[in-house]
């Protein structure tokens, strides 16, 4: 539904996006990258606010730049915080719904539906200035879905949401995706989006670094040793048992904290599957268990070869 063909965008001498070709089908696609990676430029190209310098962008088969036909089919939920404080949530959604082309006759009920969908009915008539960050996110999503778009673009949609809010948002986005809509989520936090989708686009310095199924991308990472940090009072005993596993390559103790153990493995999935059984079997008391590699920065480091 959204296609980029060798799309590049220059800002004078600055390259925002470099020769990116990708396809965002119906379903949820996560757009990942650090700050300055080109996520915003890509979103601006998709939402028709920028024209590609070279290449082309197609949304539902049409170039989106200054194209009201495409705008009608797009929902955009930006990462803005400090505006519309004097308006009520309902007024805000109503205004943008009217701009989206909803006729006066259906405006009110449809706005109520959208507000209800994001769980904001009870707060809809309060001023946005008094909303929490999570409520602002919800009301922004309501304006994005009120005209029932075919594609929904969300910039950092999980920012400020509490765990329940994140779950609700995830359910809503999955529902939209299951109805054949393209949902594009921009984020710089891998673990947030990997709960929602396996389809990802990874941008780095304006280039598309990887795209496709998250497990395929992880496969690339897993070719490198994967570090896992464990804190336990029985660090040496745990290390001894873990080194018996064929896919554990090394174990290292922290010189400053004898309870901290870091192991390297080339098969993290197998490790994660077997480790709980091992802990139960030997009665280990594990305080914390984390992977310093399980973040976007580490993914990039591996993919860039750093």
């Amino acid at each position: 539904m959204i296609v980029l063909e060798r799309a590049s965008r220059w800002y004078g001498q600055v390259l925002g996006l470099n020769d990116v070709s990708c396809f965002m089908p119906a379903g949820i696609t996560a757009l990942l990258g650090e700050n300055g990676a080109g996520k915003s430029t890509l979103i601006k190209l998709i939402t028709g606010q920028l024209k590609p310098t070279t290449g082309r962008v197609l949304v539902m088969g049409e170039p989106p730049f200054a194209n009201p036909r495409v705008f009608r089919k797009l929902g955009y939920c930006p990462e803005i915080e400090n505006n519309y404080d004097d308006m009520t949530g309902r007024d805000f959604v109503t205004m943008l719904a009217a701009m989206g082309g909803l006729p006066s006759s259906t405006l009110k009920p449809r706005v109520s539906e959208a507000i209800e969908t994001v769980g904001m009915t009870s707060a809809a008539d309060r001023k946005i200035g008094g909303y929490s960050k999570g409520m602002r996110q919800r009301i922004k999503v309501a304006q994005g879905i009120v005209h029932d778009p075919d594609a929904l673009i969300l910039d950092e949609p999980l920012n400020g949401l509490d765990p329940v809010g994140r779950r609700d948002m995830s359910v809503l986005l999955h529902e939209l995706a299951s109805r054949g809509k393209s949902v594009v989520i921009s984020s710089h936090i891998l673990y947030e989006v990997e709960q929602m989708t396996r389809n990802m686009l990874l941008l780095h310095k304006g280039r598309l670094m990887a795209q496709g199924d998250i497990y395929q991308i992880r496969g690339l990472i897993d070719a490198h040793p994967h570090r896992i940090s464990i804190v336990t009072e029985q660090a040496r005993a745990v290390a001894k048992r873990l080194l018996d596993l064929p896919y554990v390559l090394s174990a290292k103790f922290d010189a400053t904290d004898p309870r901290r153990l870091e192991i390297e493995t080339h098969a993290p999935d197998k490790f994660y599957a077997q480790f709980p059984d091992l802990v139960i079997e030997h009665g280990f008391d594990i305080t914390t268990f984390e992977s310093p590699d399980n973040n976007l920065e580490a993914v990039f480091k591996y993919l860039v070869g750093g």
Partner: protein
Amino acid sequence: MNYDLPPPPPSASVSNIADLTYRNYEGPLVSRAVRWWIVAKSGVQGALKKPGFWVAVAFCLLPYLIHGFVFYLQQQMADMGGPAAMLLGPQEQRFGRLFYQSLCGDTNEISMFVITLLIGTGSIAADNRANALMVYLSKPITKGDYLFGKWAGVFLTLFLVALLPCLLLFLFCLVLYTSDGFLKDNPTLILKVIGSCFLPALLHSSLIIGISAWSKSPRLVGAVYAGIYFVGGILSWLLGASLFGSDPKMNNLVQHFSLSGLMEGIIQNILHVTLAAGLRRPDDPTLEIPMVAPLIVAAILVVVGGIIAARTKIKAVEVVRG
């Protein structure tokens, strides 16, 4: 013990658990002919919700009440043959002067200036600050719709604030002075009054929108606008006095090259009134109607300049040039 359940309420067929699932919209999507109106309406509604706006509106009404009342007293005394007839000025200018004094008095001008600050400074600057233009311009409205909507939101509010008390004053004159030749002597006065209300709204809205589009800070916009308004007034006065001190006509003209001066000068021409003498001699040329053509050219420059400035700057995204 009786374990029978109470009968279900009449609405029991409706589940108590709300259905929060997403619902498709099956209705039509329309292309509105006046898309700018959505933006303008939001601007007007935003203005009406500000308490400061209503305080400023009350101050706007004050000169009409005072001048209307004083005019009534003077007219009464003049009818009794007192010296008040002199204060009212020439017969053909009496009503025009009444409207001029109400519209261009300090209280009304300052109130209009304050309302402009209240509703205009943040009109585009706040959107710039929040990067909200992307939201507007990702909807099926054009940059022109957005700009015209923002401008119209400020313009309509100012125009109505100026016009409504004028219409009340007109009604007052109509009721009390029709028998004294109010309509007969001034058949086009209502059109002139509407034109006189149109001008300040046009100048204020165009200039503030132009400045607002160039900033992300409504406060900075307010400071710049206040600077233009007040410093411009002082500069034009100094310029007129220093360059054309010996040429009262030119002095009078140059002193009108400020925002408030343009409004006063053009409205003076529209209503065709000379000013009341006050402490100055009645034949003082600075009390005369200034030349209108240069003032109109200057006003057009302000309006067009403001709108071009806004149009140049309004972009959904800020393009950083490396």
